[in-house]
């Protein structure tokens, strides 16, 4: 039963992510994507500071490779780009395209970082995701002609 609870929590987490992107998208259309990204990071930083005080999880890691700090850089860019396209594409299409890009990039990153070529199943997965993007395009094409 506890497994089901965690499955539900993870599912709920997807909705939490969606809420964050919807708010940032709404903010972006009013004050611009870069300012929306700034607000997102400042508010998130304050929230996590409180969370860390409550949880007591301050762990300044020893011998952290410098590349590990690149996450913040890509995060700032991601929130800006995602907030810009979110209201333009709509919640569902934005989610589908972002997931597609994320999954394909993850395969390439693992390939580059791990040095092993992706498994056949993973290649098939990339093909199926690409088919999904292609199908969304055919629908878009029809809509544009109307």
């Amino acid at each position, binding site marked *: 039963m506890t497994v089901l609870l965690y499955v539900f929590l993870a599912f709920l*987490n*997807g909705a939490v*992510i969606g809420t964050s992107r919807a708010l940032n998208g*709404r903010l972006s259309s009013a004050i611009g994507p870069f300012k929306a990204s700034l607000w997102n990071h400042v508010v998130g930083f304050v929230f996590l500071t409180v969370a860390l005080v409550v949880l007591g999880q301050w762990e300044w890691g020893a011998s952290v490779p410098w590349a590990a700090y690149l996450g*913040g850089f890509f995060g700032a860019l991601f929130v800006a780009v995602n907030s810009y396209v979110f*209201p333009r594409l709509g919640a569902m299409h934005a989610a589908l395209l972002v997931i597609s890009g994320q999954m394909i990039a993850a395969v390439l*990153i693992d390939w580059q970082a791990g040095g092993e070529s992706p498994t056949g199943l993973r290649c098939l997965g990339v093909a199926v995701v690409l088919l*999904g993007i292609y199908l969304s395009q055919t629908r878009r094409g029809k809509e*544009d002609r109307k």
Partner: protein
Amino acid sequence: MFGRSTDWVLGIAAGALLALMIHYNSLLAEHTTPTFASWTAHGLGAVVALLLVLLTGARLSRRRRADQEGGERTPARLPRWVYLGGIPGAFTVILAAVTVNGSLSLSGTIAMMLVGQIVFGLVSDHFGLFSSPKRRIVPMDGLVALCVLAGSALIIFGGS
């Protein structure tokens, strides 16, 4: 339409940026904890975002003055809650750490989070949540979602 194709490409590019962000944040989390790694990433991200605002701000405001457009420049009418997107965004990391440390694997957590995101998008478009424009869901959307989810499942559970 060129404008909409650009949005489409930017959506996929955003996904690639997200994958890079997660890759490097996971590296940091390996040396610390997920919450602490996210705190560090938010702090550094705020600095980067501030630089982006300063770099683009000068150019944009000059163009805006030239255009003299009023458009959406009414922050007074903007509800306060739209500034709080960072809270659910940061909470995600804590919740993900809970499920990964629980009986759900990392793969299972990621897969369920993707399903949750797509279902949320569907519900949000249908009801126009958070004062977003309502969008009609057509059967083709379901087929696209099925392809993206099935492909993602193959990538997540298909080994590295």
